[in-house]
Structure formats: structure tokens, C-alpha cells
């Protein structure tokens, strides 16, 4: 069983459109392979909008805790505010002696809980989000929704991937396609851990190139093999050429160029992977990229 993780660094380069196309091609393409899909962008999970799955299971995900101060027991000494490094304890201007907890700033570290001389503080676990198991047209989908403004997205990503892996092992799936989050931080590290191959979707813009370098440094840091494909490749051909040269120098293979085409958006609006929606140049490019990614997965990793 192999894990393919799709990353980008910069957001909005087309990770989810590529992942949805791969889900379709894995199920119905030239060389089908039984695959499980995992949406590891738990902040803003969009794969379900294209795959339109039927939800089978919903599970709560409990994240960190926040401090709650009991005004009956609080003597207003201010020790909690002194030890808090997250500016989460706020004394109001009013004559109220008990401070307020800014539950959004609160990190759940419990430093105040342990230092309060009157034991007026308790730590309360928070429902941070939910994760789901669903059935899509192209196979099982694991996805999640972090509640607004919650922490621990990395842990929720790990949960989604673990569940996908367990089902893959139980039912003999050969591939997990992971649609990753943008950036290079905690949720990306969780999404990429254990990957057999990372496909980086970039775009020929100064920002795309800058962030491609950052995400390649990250995959190198964790020793993960990576391939690159360039979306909207005809938008700025000079940058497309520069990405090609940069990747050659670094020994990273560029496995395809996807042209800029509003068909991608039209397919998204219809709730279809672009490869299922049209047979145009975008779909052709994605089929070729898929074949090259599958070849790399079976040779390497």
C-alpha cells in the first residue's frame, strides 16, 4: 500500500482539482487501482465538494482544553495573568475582581491551573472538530472539519490519515491519495509524514516559485521523494521555464504542465473531477501526469 500526498506551499494552485482528477482516474482510468481518498486540509476541506460523497460515519474530535475561572473561588490575585504567556487572561476595567479568559488566545497549557493559589481554575476540553468516513463514486473518502478558530489541526490530519490507512490495510487497498493543506507547517508535516511520494502542484508566478522552493526544502528535510507539476503553465511561460530549470538543477522531475483553462472551474461548479467533465487539454495533461506519478510510485518508494 502506497501513500501519495499532494502539496503546494502556496494556496490555490490546484491541489484539490488534481486530487479529484486522480480519484477519478484511479477508479476509472486506463490502469485502475483500488484507492482510498483522504482530505488532509481540515481547515478548508474542499475535496468533498467535487466528490459529493455519501457520509457514513461522523466522529467528534476533542482537541486541547481552555481555562475556566470560578468567580466564587477567585480572589483576584492576578497570578494567572502573570504566568500566562499567551495574553489570554484579561482583567476588565470594571471593579469585577475575577479576570476573563480569552478562550481564543488560551493555549490550554494549564500553567494558570497549576499556579492558582485558590484552585479557582479548571481546564475544560474543547470539541475541536469532527472527522468523517464517506463513500464517493470513486472509493472511500476520509475527511474532517475543524471548528472555526480551533487548534490542533495537525492532530486532526493525523487522525484522518490513520483512519484511511487502517481501512486500506483491512480491505486491501493499494493506494491512499492525500489532498494536502497549503503552507509548510504543522498540518503539512502531518499530511506528508509516511508519504511514499509527494506531488507538488505549483504555478508559474513569483509567489508560486518562491513557495515551491520552501515546500521542496521541507520534503528534503523529511527525506521524502517529490515530483512537480505546473498548473496554469501558459500564464507566464518565463516562470514555467524557470521552474523547469530549477527542478532539473535540483534533480526533481517535472511530470507535466496543465494549461490555464476555466474548464477547471466549470467542472468544480458541476461537482465533477475535470477529467470526468471534459476531454480537453486540461484532462489530457492530468491523465499524463497521473500515468507518470503511478510509474514513479511503482518504481520508487
Amino acid at each position, binding site marked *: 500500500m502506497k501513500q501519495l500526498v499532494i502539496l*503546494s506551499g*502556496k*494556496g*490555490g*494552485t490546484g491541489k*484539490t482539482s488534481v486530487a479529484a482528477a486522480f480519484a477519478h482516474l484511479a477508479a476509472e482510468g486506463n490502469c485502475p487501482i483500488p484507492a482510498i481518498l483522504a482530505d488532509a*486540509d481540515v*481547515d*478548508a476541506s*474542499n475535496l468533498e*465538494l467535487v466528490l459529493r460523497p455519501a457520509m457514513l460515519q461522523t466522529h467528534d474530535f476533542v482537541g486541547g*482544553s481552555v481555562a475556566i475561572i470560578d468567580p466564587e473561588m477567585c480572589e483576584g490575585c492576578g497570578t494567572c495573568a502573570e*504566568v500566562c*504567556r*499567551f*495574553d489570554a487572561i*484579561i482583567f476588565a476595567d470594571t471593579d469585577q475582581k475575577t479576570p476573563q479568559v480569552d478562550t*481564543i*488566545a488560551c*493555549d*490550554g*497549557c*494549564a*500553567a494558570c491551573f*497549576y*499556579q492558582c493559589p485558590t484552585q479557582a481554575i479548571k481546564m475544560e476540553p474543547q470539541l475541536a472538530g469532527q472527522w468523517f468516513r464517506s463513500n464517493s463514486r470513486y472509493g472511500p473518502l476520509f475527511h474532517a472539519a475543524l471548528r*472555526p*478558530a*480551533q*487548534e490542533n*489541526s*495537525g492532530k486532526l490530519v493525523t487522525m484522518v490519515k490513520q483512519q484511511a490507512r487502517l481501512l486500506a490495510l483491512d480491505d486491501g487497498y493499494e493506494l491512499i491519495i492525500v489532498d494536502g493543506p*497549503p*503552507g*509548510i*507547517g*504543522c498540518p*503539512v*508535516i502531518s499530511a506528508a509524514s509516511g508519504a511514499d511520494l509527494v506531488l507538488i502542484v505549483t*504555478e508559474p*508566478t*513569483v*509567489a*508560486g516559485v*518562491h*513557495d515551491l522552493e*520552501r515546500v521542496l*526544502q*521541507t520534503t528534503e*528535510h523529511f527525506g521524502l521523494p517529490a515530483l512537480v507539476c505546473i498548473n*496554469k503553465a501558459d*500564464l*507566464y511561460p*518565463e516562470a514555467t521555464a524557470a521552474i523547469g530549470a530549477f527542478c532539473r538543477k535540483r534533480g526533481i522531475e517535472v511530470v507535466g504542465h496543465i494549461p*490555464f483553462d*476555466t474548464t477547471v*472551474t466549470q467542472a*468544480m*461548479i458541476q*461537482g465533477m473531477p475535470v477529467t470526468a467533465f471534459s476531454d480537453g487539454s486540461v484532462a489530457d495533461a492530468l491523465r499524463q501526469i497521473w500515468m507518470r506519478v503511478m510509474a514513479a510510485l511503482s518504481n520508487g518508494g
Partner: protein
Amino acid sequence: MRIAVASGKGGTGKTTVATSLALSLDTTRTMVLDCDVEAPNAHLFLNPTFERREEVGILIPQVDGGRCSLCGRCAEVCQFHAIAVIGQNILVFPELCHGCGSCTLNCPEQAISEQLDVLGIIEAGPTPTGVYFARGVMKVGEPMAVPIIRELKRWDIEGGATSLSRQQDETYDWETIILDAPPGTSCPVVESVHGADFVALVTEPTPFGLHDLRLMVEVVHELDIPVGVVINRDGIGDAEVDKFCAEADLPVLMRIPLDRSIGAGIAQGKPLVAIRPEYTDHFRDLYRRILDIVQEAEL
């Protein structure tokens, strides 16, 4: 006035809006803070000359083996499993530590001191247009973006007396501070927009854009900050974003059409107002509308 530019979905044009808004105002009294420390891009459009730089991170525990009695109190109070007693040793896991200091405070032998674990840098400097610029850059391989954003916002920048710490009074000299937020809706985004006077949400009229706009509106409502929407690549998709904004009573403050020449210019690192100078007026209108909304909210 602190205006945060955020989006939920990535690649909708946050940096385009943040930089061109700054360039359309009284530039010498405007600062841009790039809070996307994982994938910072605003400098590509503003070309700053960095004159100040600091390493930032969190304070992690260092245990003095001579004084430690292996009692395990540190591991017991740590909520993040970042410190553990293994046999005759104490192990610290810096990548799990949040730097809260609770182990140090609770150690009965005072065997713990703290040292800076560098997660990234913050740097600042002027740009040719007069806009002052500061950003954070996370070290590759580090998981935690929030402490870098927190330090960036707390940074006292000389000449402007600019502490952005949300607990301090607003005594800075900058007329406008524009915060370019990272994508998503979780902790780094919240840290970036927390304390702002207004949040401009940049979206595109597609199902992904709408889905993530909805989530971000919930975040901003939870933070109780006035909010408005900028629709980028207007015309690429459908009318659902407009419908949602009308139903949710969200003002659509500005529209930037889908236009290949704008996309190509931005790809080359040109600010929108350099590609289309007439947008300077549109961004000034945007600023006036934001001021009106903020003033109304304060009443």
C-alpha cells in the same frame, strides 16, 4: 487602523489586495505585516530592504541533571507531552513544546531553566514606495507558525513605536497597518487577525471559494470583528458567493474581474495598482468604506 486581509481558501488574492491597498494610501504612514510565515509572498510585490532582523521562537526547558530528582512533576503538568522521564534521564521534545513555562514553574527542585528555541525570524525595513514592511519567516521543518506571528505582532519597531500586542493601548504612529494573513481557518489565521479593527475577506466566486468564505466568516464573527468581502476573479464561476453575501448581510466592498492580463502581471511580481493604475482609486474607495464600517461598529 489595523486591517487584516484573510481568505480561508488559498490563492484567492490576499497578497494582491493587501499590497495594492497599502500602495494606494498615504504610503509613508502605512505598514504591511506579512503574517503568512509558512509561505510569505508580500515582499515579492513591495521589494523591501530589510534593516532589522531578530530570531524568534519559544522558551523551552533545559533540565539541570545535578538538581533534578526525577520526580516527574514536569511531565505531569505538561499538557503537550513535551517532557518525559525516561529511566534516569529527562527528555525534552522541542517540536511538541509550546513554551508555556509551566514545567519550570512547577519543578520543586528549581532544576529547569529556559532557553530560546528558534522557530524562525522576523525582519523589517522600508520599501521604495514609502510603505514600511515587516514579516515573519518560519524555519523549514518547524511545525509551529503561531509563536512567530505572535512575536511579529508584538515587535516594537523603532521610529514608529509600533507594538501590536493586543493588550497594549493603541499608541502607534502608523495610520494604517495591513496584515496579510495565511490561508486556512485555524490557529495561525486567528493569531493573525486577532486584534484587527477590520477583516477584509478575499474570495473567488467558485464552490471552493464560497465554502471557505463561509468558514472564515464564522471565525471572524467569533472574534467579533467587522468584516467585508472582496470578490476576485469576478466572472470565473457562478453567482453563489453574491447570494451568500446578500443573505448573510456581508458587504461586497470591491470586485476584481477575471482578466488574464492581471493574472499575468501578478505572476511577474507586479502589484495590481502597477498593472492597472486606475485601481488606486478603487482601493481608496475600499479604504473609505472600511473606515465607515469601523466607525459605525464603534457607535
